[in-house]
């Protein structure tokens, strides 16, 4: 049994607190994130025009993507 005021307990607690903090930070960041698009033509950002178009749609848009069956993880990533 480890004494409550021992160095060992303190060190292990410090590790656990650190690991928890890192995990929490990652979980929080997965919901709230920011992306810096370095490409000149802003390839990975949504254009204001597109946003405007999407806002003005008055019907439901159906997007069908055919991705089923034996897929490698690259396509699973696309599927998600």
């Amino acid at each position, binding site marked *: 049994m480890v004494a409550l005021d*021992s*160095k*060992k307990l303190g*060190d*292990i607690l*410090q*590790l656990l607190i*650190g*690991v928890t903090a*890192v995990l929490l*930070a*990652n979980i929080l*960041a*997965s919901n709230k*994130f*920011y*992306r*810096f*698009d*370095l*490409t*000149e033509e802003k*390839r*990975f950002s949504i254009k204001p025009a597109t946003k405007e178009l999407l806002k003005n749609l008055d019907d439901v848009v159906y997007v069908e993507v055919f991705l089923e069956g*034996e897929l*490698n*993880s690259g396509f*699973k*990533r696309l599927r*998600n």
Partner: protein
Amino acid sequence: MIQVFIKELNSFLNSLIAYIVISVFLAGIGLLMWVFPDTSVLDYGYADMETLFALGPYVFMFLIPAITMRMFAEENRAGTIELLLTKPITDWQIILGKYLSGWALVIFAVLPTVFYYWSLRQLGDPIGNIDTAAVIGSYIGLILLGGVFTSIGVLSSLLTTNQIVSFIVAVFLCFIFYSGFSSLASINDWGSGALLFEQFGILYHYNALSKGLIDTRDILYFASVITLMLLFTKLILGSRKW
């Protein structure tokens, strides 16, 4: 911390390690990128630096453990660790000093490859026809990846007094973190967990950065792995007083 950092950096520069690491890295990457026909950009016909960024991590996987393997292992074996530990500095200062000096050496090795970027820029048709964003993103990725490998190396250097054991453990861990997780995720039994599993690996975040899209989540992932490794290093270094 600064003193430990400078001392470690000096020991690299005085013992040929730095020069060997940098020249082996540059010779290897240079041959792969410009000479060997399978991977050469000149034969490939497109001005991109994919070769450097795809093969760089594999070169790092062997070079970085070679830099870090002696950090604690050598000091433990020679007993000079006692001298260092009795100095009026905290454990964190020792770990960070050693860690940052290793990382600095890695960055020195990467810096000259900026010339490759310049050369490719000149070779592009028309001149300057190269995806600069992707190159910047990949450089950020490569340097962060170097940081992760260095932290793994520092940890495994502390685990043992034998440099060779430390080297092999570090190479293995680097491999697991780099492509091991992605390869495991491609086993077909994970279902929807495959993506989550893949995100534990470096490759997923490295590829995301190399598109030229800097995502805070990817940066945080690299920072997290480095922090975790250094926390474990701290625990093991502190365990001598238990």
